[in-house]
């Protein structure tokens, strides 16, 4: 049984500059988000008990193959990608359809793992959309998974409780970052990643047309107004004076 990990290519948030409250997206490197890396690490851990491969699925624009290389270096065996310029910045409903169609192309996919939310949009809805399209059961916010034959056990980490469920496979899960700390790939695994198998589709290959009208429209996307003093202080004595002037402590 193969384990499929859905990964999103996201802009490296630390490289986004703000000008006139607008995010400047040019030249921002594309990366795999931290939660997705944890999802991949969890999948690699489960590989043995599942007795199959770890396969990355991802949909994105022309930089996708470069971004996904890091995932192949981190232990995935192969990647099935949908690369299409029209997918840049595409909304969750379309990405859900594209990923579900891609997953359907993979044989013997028993468990499909997502990060609980992407590093940029963090809406967490693609996982549920994919589960619905495929007609699979799902469990979200998982911090522990064990695979037995045709069922899995997984623990859903909710606000106040941990709920361990039995779930028939194939199934879709979203995981929290606590499930597994990602490993930094070694040089040799980075080199090996180049030769790992990749299948690349376009939207036309999958027979998917992007709907003319968007489901969700973004009206405003601006950095909040920040008016910080930005004063550099040099010593603890100065810090204490700040405490006094801000009325935090009295002398």
């Amino acid at each position, binding site marked *: 049984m193969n384990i499929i990990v859905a990964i999103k290519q996201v802009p490296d948030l*630390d490289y986004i500059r703000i000008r006139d409250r607008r995010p400047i997206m040019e030249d921002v490197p594309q990366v795999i988000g931290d939660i997705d890396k944890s999802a991949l690490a969890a999948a690699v851990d489960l590989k043995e008990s599942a007795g199959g491969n770890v396969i990355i699925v991802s949909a994105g624009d022309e930089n996708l193959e470069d971004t996904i290389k890091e995932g192949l270096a981190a232990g995935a065996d192969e990647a099935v990608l949908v690369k299409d310029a029209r997918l840049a910045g595409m909304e969750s409903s379309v990405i859900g359809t594209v990923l579900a169609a891609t997953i359907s192309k993979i044989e013997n996919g028993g468990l499909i793992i997502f990060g609980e939310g992407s590093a940029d949009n963090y809406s967490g809805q693609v996982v549920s959309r994919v589960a619905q399209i495929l007609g699979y059961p799902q469990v979200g916010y998982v911090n522990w998974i064990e695979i037995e034959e045709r069922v899995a056990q997984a623990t859903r980490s909710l606000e106040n409780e941990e709920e361990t469920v039995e779930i028939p496979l194939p199934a879709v899960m979203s995981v929290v970052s606590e499930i597994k700390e990602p490993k930094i790939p070694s040089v040799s695994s980075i080199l090996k990643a180049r030769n790992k198998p990749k299948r690349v589709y376009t939207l036309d290959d999958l027979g998917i047309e992007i709907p003319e009208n968007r489901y969700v429209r973004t009206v405003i996307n601006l950095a909040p107004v920040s008016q*910080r003093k*930005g004063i550099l*202080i040099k010593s603890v004595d100065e810090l204490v004076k700040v405490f006094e002037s801000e009325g935090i402590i009295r002398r």
Partner: protein
Amino acid sequence: MAGILVYSENSKNAHELLTAATIIGSALGLEVRALSINNDTQAEDLAERCGEVYRIKEDSLKLSDTSAMASILDQVVRKLNISVVLLSSNRRGKELAGRVAQILDSGCLTDVYGIEVRDDGNIDCFRNGLGGLTVVSQVIDTEKKVIAIVPKIFEAMGNKITGVIRDVEVDVRSSGVNVVRTKTKVRDAVDIETSDIIVAVGQGLANKDDLPQVEKLAQLLEGEVACTKPVATDRQWLSEERIIGLSGKKCKPNLAILLGISGQVQFTVGIRDAKTIIAVNTDENANVKHISDYMLVADIKDIIPELIEKIS
């Protein structure tokens, strides 16, 4: 008359959603309806706050089975001619939202922390963009809309009316998810969101042995200790209740002291509404300087004992 449906398994969240639903409903002429599943007490509480409560009693329907739950929501939406579904953006609610939206072929927004109904009938939903770097306002353009709202944003609706409870028949389609066991999380009773002063630590705190000093500083200032996500989840030095940021708490204290925190956006989104921010960091160019009123470039290990001594 078309309606707006409120559902959360968490009663307090459901009461808050009723407030949001009333705002949207009165602007758009939508009847507010609440749904309660396998919880009679909740149904009765809701009926003191909402004119029409729909109750489902089906032993075979489990909250843990998101597929079955989404199918139920879909059935109720169609039966009651619902155009807007309001869910809680807690973990169960977020998981449910995407699946319901997919069945309804609808747009969906989660983590919504503000709502404005515009004159043209659009519902502007405010949420974080780019991991919290920006604030976005988004509009769902599909006929039906699924919106998940962050808990504690809206006041809970008070109990002032006598609504009716109607039982609704649904067809339960289990997906075979069964609960094996549940365990209550060991909770830290701290509520950093209401604290006036926050002393937050990040990975710049190299040694766990230095944590008591941080706690002492917080105590002296009558504040609470908080942290970045890795300090709680990777190192497990502090409880999850103390995490500030995108996947943690959003705090608006009068003063936030950020110790050894680099200031990644996933963290700063949870503290940027603080009135005054003081940062101590060894790296003068750390991102945290952009959100700080005062920054001291130093090692927190040296600074904290000295600071404690001078303000004691």
